C-alpha cells in the first residue's frame, strides 16, 4: 500500500475543521448529548445513595462521618468490582455474600468458623484493593462503568467520517485540493479530538461535584485519579473510533455505517459472552476488540496499564490501516 504524501498541515487543518464541524453536522451534537447524559447519569446513580447516607448521618448524628461512608462504599463496591474485573465469578460472590450472612446470624460458637469462611472469600485482591482503598472508590466505580459503557456511545460520533461524502460524491471536490490520506487521517484525528473534549467535560464535572459537594475524599487524591481516569477513557475511545473509521470507509451509507458500527462493537462482546456458554474458548472472541483487557487501563501495575495503552495503539493502527487501504482503493 502506498501512503500518498500525507501532509501534516493538511491533516491538522482537516482535523480541526472536522472537530468543529462535528456539532454542526448533527452527529457530534447527538453524541455530545448522549455522552453527557449517560456519563452524568452513571455518576448520579452511584453518588445518590452516598448522598442519602450522608443525609441520614447528618439527621441522626448531627454530623457526617467520611470514614464510615468510605467503608460502606468499599463494602458494597468490593463484590461488584471483583466481578467486573473478572477476579471472581458470580458463584464465588454469592458464596461470599452467604458466608457474610452466616457470620452475622450465627451464634457465638459458630462465629469463629463464620469469620474464617468470610475471610476466605472476602480477601481483597491487589487490583480491587487499589481501586477501592488506595484510590477514591466512588470515582473508581464511575470509571469502571464508563469504561464499559462509553464504547457503545462512541459510534454516534464516529460513524460518518467518510461514508456520507462517499454516498454524495462530495469527496471528489475535496480531492482536487488534497490527498485521500489527509482526508482519512484528518477526519479520524478530528473525531478523536472531539471525543477527548467530551470525555474531559464529563470527568471534570463529576470530579468537581465529588470534590465540592460530597467532600469524602481529599482534593489531591480526587484530582490525580480523575486525570488517570480521563486518560484511560480518552485512550480507550481511540481504537473504537478507528473501528468506526474502517466501517465508514467500507460502506457508502451513513445509516448502514451506524448500524454496522453498533452491531460490531456490541456484537463482539455479546457474541463472546453468549458463545462462551456453549463453548468456553469462545470468550476469547472479545479480544477482537479491546473489550477483553480494557479494564487494565485502571490497573495498579504500570506494566499492565502501559501494556493496555500499547494494545490500544496496536488495535488503532490495524483498524486504521485496513480502513485506509479500502478508502485508498475504492471508487469515490
Amino acid at each position, binding site marked *: 500500500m502506498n501512503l500518498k504524501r500525507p501532509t501534516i498541515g493538511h491533516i491538522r487543518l482537516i482535523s480541526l475543521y472536522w472537530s468543529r464541524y462535528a*456539532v*454542526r*453536522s*448533527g*452527529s*457530534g*451534537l*447527538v453524541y*455530545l*448529548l448522549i455522552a*453527557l*447524559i449517560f456519563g*452524568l*447519569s452513571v*455518576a*448520579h446513580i452511584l*453518588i*445518590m445513595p452516598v*448522598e*442519602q447516607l450522608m*443525609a441520614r448521618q447528618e439527621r441522626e448524628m448531627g454530623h457526617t462521618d467520611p470514614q464510615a461512608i468510605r467503608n460502606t462504599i468499599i463494602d458494597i463496591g468490593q463484590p461488584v468490582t471483583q466481578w467486573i474485573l473478572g477476579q471472581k465469578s458470580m458463584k464465588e460472590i454469592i458464596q461470599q455474600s452467604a458466608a457474610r450472612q452466616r457470620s452475622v446470624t450465627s451464634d457465638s460458637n459458630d462465629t469463629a468458623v463464620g469469620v474464617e469462611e468470610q475471610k476466605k472469600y472476602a480477601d481483597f485482591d491487589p487490583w480491587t484493593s487499589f481501586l477501592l482503598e488506595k484510590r477514591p472508590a466512588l470515582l473508581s466505580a464511575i470509571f469502571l462503568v464508563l469504561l464499559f459503557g462509553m464504547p457503545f456511545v462512541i459510534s454516534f460520533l464516529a460513524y460518518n467520517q467518510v461514508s456520507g461524502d462517499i454516498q454524495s460524491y462530495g469527496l471528489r471536490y475535496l480531492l482536487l485540493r488534497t490527498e485521500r490520506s489527509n482526508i482519512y487521517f484528518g477526519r479520524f484525528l478530528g473525531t478523536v479530538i472531539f471525543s477527548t473534549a467530551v470525555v474531559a467535560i464529563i470527568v471534570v*464535572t*463529576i470530579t468537581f*461535584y465529588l470534590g465540592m*459537594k460530597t467532600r469524602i475524599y481529599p482534593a489531591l487524591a480526587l484530582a490525580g485519579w480523575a486525570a488517570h481516569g480521563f486518560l484511560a477513557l480518552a485512550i480507550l475511545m481511540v481504537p473504537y473510533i478507528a473501528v468506526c473509521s474502517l466501517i465508514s470507509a467500507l460502506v457508502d451509507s451513513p445509516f448502514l455505517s451506524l448500524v454496522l458500527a453498533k452491531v460490531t462493537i456490541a456484537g463482539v462482546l455479546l457474541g463472546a459472552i453468549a458463545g462462551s456458554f456453549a463453548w468456553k474458548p469462545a470468550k476469547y472472541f472479545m479480544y477482537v476488540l479491546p473489550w477483553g483487557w480494557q479494564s487494565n487501563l485502571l490497573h495498579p501495575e504500570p506494566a499492565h496499564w502501559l501494556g493496555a495503552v500499547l494494545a490500544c495503539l496496536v488495535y488503532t493502527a490495524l483498524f486504521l490501516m485496513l480502513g485506509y487501504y479500502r478508502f485508498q482503493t475504492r471508487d469515490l
Partner: protein
Amino acid sequence: MSEQKRPGGLTALAVINFIFSGWGFIGLLGLAAFFAFIGKIPTDDMNEAQKTQFEAFQNMGLPVFIFIFALSLISSVLLLLSGIGYLKLKKFLGRMIGNTYAVISIVSSVISGIMFPSEMGGGFNIGTIIGLIYPIITLILLNTTFKEDLTN
C-alpha cells in the same frame, strides 16, 4: 436566489426539541392528575423516604403547584415553537424563542434548587446538572455555531 441549506445539527436540535416538548406535555398531564388525586393516594405501603417525599408534595400548596405547572407549560411551548423555528431557519421563532427557552430553563432550575426541599427535587445535585445540559448547549449553539443560519 438559492434556498439556504439547513445544517444537520439544526435538524437534530429541532427533533430533540420536539421530543423534549412531547415529554413536557405528558409530564404536565401527569402533574395535573397527581395534584388532582393527591388526597386519594394510599400511603400505607410506602417506605419512610417515599412518605416524606409524598408529604412534601401534599404540603406544597396551590401557588407552588401553579408556579411549577406554568414553568413546565412555558418551557414545553417554547421548545415546540423554537423547534419549528430551527426547521424553518427563522431568526425570531428559532433563535430568539430558543434563547428564551434556554434562559427560562436555566433560571427555573436555579430557582427550583433554591426554593424547593430536596424531597421535591430541590437542592443541588448531579440531577440538576443533567437538567441544565440541554438548555446550556442550546444557548451556546444558537449564539455561535448556528448564529448565521437562523436569519430568515
